[in-house]
């Protein structure tokens, strides 16, 4: 191995991909799309096998002890990487913002949580803010010359400042036009277990979101969190609205040949 080759390998950041439990179980395409985008951005990607979920369901239900235990096991799995990236603002914020808070009074773990937190990024923010990616080289599945509208997921937007990053990357896709809906920064009604606990209220929130999406005339609603997309797509499907829903990573990686989360594809 010559010196130049060696340098090339060590320069490439080691990225631990935190899949998120929803992507892991429901839509692996998003995981593969995220991995492709990271590799295209010059990263070496690993997906630790023992990863579970970020612990938000327990954390937000008030089960702090379980959330802290999940945080500790996640730290052990991911602290060896240069970066941890999640195709979800919600999970990334859990790792980056809430793990340090959860473990701040645990002397054995506070520093490890803080160090891990600093390395955790939401996918589009990592690509643009850390890796300096300005454009992606992907196109739509054949024939799509559509209009999309972007939904800002709450945790990514308010806890991580993710707003311009996905729009900037999406703008580099040929044949795509973007139009913001009037309440792009308003909650879609998912809220983790909120949507099951308070289904009627959640549905009203999703309906407001969908009305705003429909008003743009967009063919597709795009977001960075599968949770939001499930809530929106599930409601679009039940209402019979012909608007597709897809994760931003699918578009950016050009992995749009499979069916959308909802709609007729």
């Amino acid at each position, binding site marked *: 191995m010559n010196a130049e080759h060696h340098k090339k390998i060590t320069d490439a950041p080691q990225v631990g991909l935190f899949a998120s439990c929803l992507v892991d179980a429901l839509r692996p395409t998003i995981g593969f799309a995220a991995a492709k985008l990271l590799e295209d951005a010059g990263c070496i990607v690993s997906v630790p096998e023992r990863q579970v979920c970020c612990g938000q369901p327990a954390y937000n239900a*008030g089960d702090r002890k379980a959330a802290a235990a999940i945080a500790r096991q996640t730290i052990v799995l991911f602290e060896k990487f240069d970066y941890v990236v999640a195709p979800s603002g919600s999970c990334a914020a859990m790792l980056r913002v809430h793990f340090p808070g959860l473990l701040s009074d645990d002397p054995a773990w506070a520093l490890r949580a803080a160090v891990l937190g600093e390395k955790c990024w939401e996918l589009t923010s990592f690509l643009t803010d850390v890796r300096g990616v300005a454009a992606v080289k992907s196109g739509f599945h054949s024939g799509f010359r559509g209009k999309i509208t972007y939904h800002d997921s709450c945790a990514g937007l308010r806890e991580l400042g993710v707003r311009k990053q996905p729009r900037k990357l999406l703008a580099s896709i040929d044949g795509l036009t973007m139009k913001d809906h009037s309440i792009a920064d308003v909650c879609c009604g998912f809220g983790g277990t909120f949507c099951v606990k308070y289904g009627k209220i959640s549905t009203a929130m999703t309906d407001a979101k969908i009305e705003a999406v429909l008003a743009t005339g967009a063919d597709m609603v795009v977001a960075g969190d599968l949770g939001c997309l499930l*809530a929106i797509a599930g409601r679009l499907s039940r209402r019979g609205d012909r608007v597709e829903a897809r994760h931003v990573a699918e578009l950016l990686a050009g992995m749009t040949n499979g069916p959308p989360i909802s709609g007729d594809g």
Partner: protein
Amino acid sequence: MIMDAAPDQSSAPDFPARAAAALADPTLQGALTKLQTEFRRDRAAMLGRIPEFDQLRDHATAIRNHSLAHLDELLEQFETNVSLTGGIVHWCRNAAEACETVTGICRAVGAETVAKSKSMLSEEIALNDHLAAASIEPVETDLGEYILQLRHETPSHIVMPAIHLNAGQIADVFREAHTDHDPARYLGDADALLAEARAMLRQKFLDADVGITGANALIADTGSILLVTNEGNADLVHSLPKTHIAIVGIEKAVATLDGAMAVVRVLARSATTQEVTSYTTLVTGKRRANDADGPSSFHVVLVDNGRSRMLAGPYAEALRCIRCGACQSLCPVYGAVGGHAYGAVYAGPIGAVLTPNLGAPGGLGAARHLPQASSFCGQCEEVCPVRIPLPALMRRLREDAFEDRQITVAGQKWIAAWGWAAQRPALYRLGRRIGILMLRILAKVSGGTIRTLPLAGGWSATRDFPAPEGGSFVELWNRRKRRESS
């Protein structure tokens, strides 16, 4: 115009039932959509006019923190300075003491009617019921509160108490209440409604024996109270009757007028998106020898009602609240169901934190479920002018409930079981496999998309669920990597 007893919130139907009723009420939905659409638009315009708004928020937050850190000294200083102006300060530990004190002052001056300007504390301690029980007629003079008093309703919003009503409903209640007016009169616009209310209220101001106001701040170094209104009614309430009583929560103390102004700068902007309200009034003591008007006696009733207990605990930051209502105006849950669905004096995100903490230990009643009704979207914290971390405080309340084993909402047991499994990755992987398989079977049975989810009826009542693509990403990825490297 004696107000009926307020509806007993604790025996009212629970939050989900009230929320469902609110969602099915098209008039209410129209009012809420109007509120949030206009407020969002006007707030954006307001922020555009004042790029330094975040710095003003930081300053107001620091002022409020200073107040809370020095509350004991500030309140004593306030009392001393009120005494120097000839006023009297009354200290009340709870709602009962506060109501007794106010009623006692009213009785001592032989009051038959009292004119009131808007006060959330008055709602919190149910003062009107108490006055009515003592045969003293309370007259609300804030237009919104006046309408609600005619309708025997409680406020649904901190600064826009009647925001759940439309103009037609208000015209109806005026026609019903103002029976000496021509039934055929025109009440088709806001000006007509306002003119009629103003005419009705003018005599009430003149007749009132006592005026009761709240206060937006207690200024310690002058003994003044600060009143912020848009209707000017508070100014008539405190200056026309012979006796003025200000009822105020102890957390409202502030060291100086400058500090109070720091709060004012963010208050109107956050509450109504105005730069400043129409009237900002400082009231210092009773009428002096050369004053043109003013009351001959001035009382400040300081009310604790759980605040000092709150100050000593993990929810102290919520005492920074300046009652602007911005967290309600922009909360998507509040926007879906309105204030009355919460069944509490203080609705929305701030209500979810105040309601369990104020009053006697255990809160103002029926409150433990309120912090659950949030998607934690963080909009409330984003707009709070004094940066109260409302989602974190609501989560903390959920932790209290979880520790008390108060299974307040369906599904909490499942979350606990899930949390247990997530700490055991092998078990989690097995569960994941079974889960994916079952969802795929469900999807196959129903022809592609899942229309009924066992254990998650709250979802599938109104939403479909996509069929999983198949397999776990984590397993698929690592299997592929092993294949590539072998």
